[in-house]
């Protein structure tokens, strides 16, 4: 890679850590993970369309321990990305830039995401036998 000698603007290393930074980068990370997880949805829909045999084979993969862990992670990422996305829409509208408010919204996003993901996973518990 060629080294560009032009000056760089100050980046992450010069800023004191602020919770909103974590909320923001986790929004990207959860978005990337959901992009990958959307392949699971496509795979699942194709399996449904391909008939009972294909669906049984796909169910076996999705209901395996790694499959369950990925789905559980996708549920967590779903709630986090949805709530953090609403936070970004508020910021786009110019709401929530005061530091105390930003801090409170950031914590609320994380707390609500944890609660909602826990509730969803608890409700999905009965699918454990996946039949």
């Amino acid at each position, binding site marked *: *890679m060629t080294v560009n000698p032009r000056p760089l603007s100050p980046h992450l290393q010069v800023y004191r850590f602020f919770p909103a930074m974590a909320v923001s980068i986790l929004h*990207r990370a959860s*978005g*990337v993970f*959901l*992009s990958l997880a*959307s*392949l699971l*949805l*496509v795979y699942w*829909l*194709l399996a*449904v*369309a*391909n*008939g*009972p045999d294909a*669906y*049984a084979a796909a*169910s076996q993969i999705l209901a395996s321990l790694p499959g369950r862990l990925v789905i559980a992670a996708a*549920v967590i990422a*779903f709630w986090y990305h*949805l709530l953090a*996305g*609403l936070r*970004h*829409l508020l910021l*786009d509208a110019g709401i929530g830039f005061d530091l105390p408010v930003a801090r409170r919204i950031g914590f609320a996003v994380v707390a609500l995401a944890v609660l909602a993901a826990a509730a*969803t996973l608890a*409700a*999905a518990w009965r*699918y454990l036998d*996946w*039949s």
Partner: protein
Amino acid sequence: MSLRSPLGAALGHGSARSGPAHGWNQRLSALALVPLGLWFLCALLALPDLGHATVVAWIATPTTAVLLLLFALLSLWHSLLGVATIVEDYVHGPVVKTASLLALQAAHGVAALCVIVAVIAILGGSAR
């Protein structure tokens, strides 16, 4: 009067005048995906089981098919807009960047096609 130099225009420097659409589309799809995503989650959890017959019967209703297509296709579109932003932010080599963006577009296009064909097949009854 444009402040853009002819050389800059020829080299493609500066604004391409198509910037706002990307961010606007991303936010609009985000807004639409809030109710659609909640619907998808609740509808899945409301199914009595995840057996093939149950899932086919669920998707084969026109309302479900429309909402599911909306949810899946808008998700893929939103996903493409999002990962394209991340590639543009972090991938700097012009060749690698363009190749990554094209590959992502192709992957999302194929995924969207799979979703459409799958839902139509289920609607048409060929999944039974």
